[in-house]
């Protein structure tokens, strides 16, 4: 049983790291603010969620797990809100999104 738990935690942490890595690569490679916000907000969120899930599995059935679930919930609410705020601010400033063909 313990081994299964360890394997699950390992898998969750590794996949969480993977998606966080994707977020970093995305911020580096993508061409403009909007597309970078995509990478920064979502891949990142999933990475954090997976890491939190790993924490939850580690604790097992415990009040700490409920707190972890609450943390995940707040991540799910705040992360898209922040991304929306950034993108909206850019949109209000009339920043044109990058399009195919604008290679620079």
């Amino acid at each position, binding site marked *: 049983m313990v081994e299964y738990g360890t394997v699950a935690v390992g898998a969750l942490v590794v996949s969480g790291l*993977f*998606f966080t890595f*994707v977020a970093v*690569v*995305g911020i580096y*490679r*993508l*061409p*403009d603010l*909007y*597309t970078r*916000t*995509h*990478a920064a*907000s*979502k*891949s990142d*969120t*999933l990475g954090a*969620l997976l890491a939190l899930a790993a924490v939850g599995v580690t604790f097992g059935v415990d*009040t700490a797990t*409920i*707190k972890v679930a*609450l943390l995940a919930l707040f991540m*799910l*609410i705040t*992360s*898209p*809100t922040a*991304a*929306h705020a950034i*993108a*909206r601010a*850019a*949109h*209000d400033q009339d920043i044109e*999104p*990058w*399009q*195919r063909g604008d290679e620079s």
Partner: protein
Amino acid sequence: MTTELGSGDADFGFLVPVSDSPTLDETVEYAAREAREVAAETDEHVDLFLVAPITPDGPPGVTDRDDVDHLLERAAAVATDTLEMTDPEGSVDVRTAMPELARYPPNPVEYVDAIVAVADEREIETVIVDPDHRMPVETPIGRSIETELRDIRGFDLEMAPVERPARKGRLVTRGGLAQFLSVAGLSFGFYLVLGGFGDVMFDLVTGGVTALLVAGVLSRITFEQTPQPTRVVTTAWRWLLYVPYLLWKIVTANVQIAYVVLHPSLPIDPTMERFEAGVWGGTATTTLANSITLTPGTLTVDVRNREFVVHSLTSGSREDLLDGGLERAVRFVFYGRSAMRYPSPRERLAVNTEANASDGGAETETGTGNAAAGDDDGTAGESS
């Protein structure tokens, strides 16, 4: 009390939008007295129209035919009583109308459209509005009915002088036991979860005190509507179904984005999409906007009333967005299973283009007419 159409022989008319508000009776009394006064002064016949739109296809609720019929009957009775009590000079007819809205949930613009249609048909120019009038729709970032009628539709508008001052906005609602208990229960549960269960007695006592304090201070500003246990349970249950669906969407779409981002040639094709979302109400709109943002490849940039501006990273994510899976799920959470049968954004866009291609200006009271009216709004928004 049924709709009486075509009674256009009156020279003056007053229109009162009717909703289930605490000041409805006072408003109707005021309108009746005004109508009587005008009738006596001008020696002309005056119609007093009480209007409340209904949604025939919607689930039982505030815009249900029976409820509205009942409400109008009550309002008409109040008006008739008032007319009998005031000086019986001048002829005033009390009439009621229940214009049908094409779909559920109605949006505020369609709701006002329906009222305006009744007014236009009888050439009524004066509207008397209950300061507490509640559109039976959850207005998103919407305008109030008086703004819509006076500033945008150009009606001669009077606010009924009612005893109770109008509530400004909906931030502070009337407190109530249900509100108080809900907030107290929530904060008590939250306190216990955070506090753990080390010393049970201590936690229960301090938790109880905290909960009472929190509820005392905040219960009046926490809810937009009085929480009803059955509704809370069904909505919570639907949320439980929605969250796994959303998580699944997040994971699958993230894998696609990971592929795109890590691909050597970076195959992205970002565009801005505009579409009219099929949801109304602050919470539903926020949920849909945030869900769209959470799903990789799409990012809600701006929301104006119902018009969403969404940035999409790849053509695949754009297809997903227009297929409207998320939107359908959000409709399910907030409006129930019956609301899932609703055209996807793609289908609505197709209807839009068709209606615009043909003559989209004709105003009819059928469902397609309302859809066409919606399109006009959409195109106006885009061109500005």
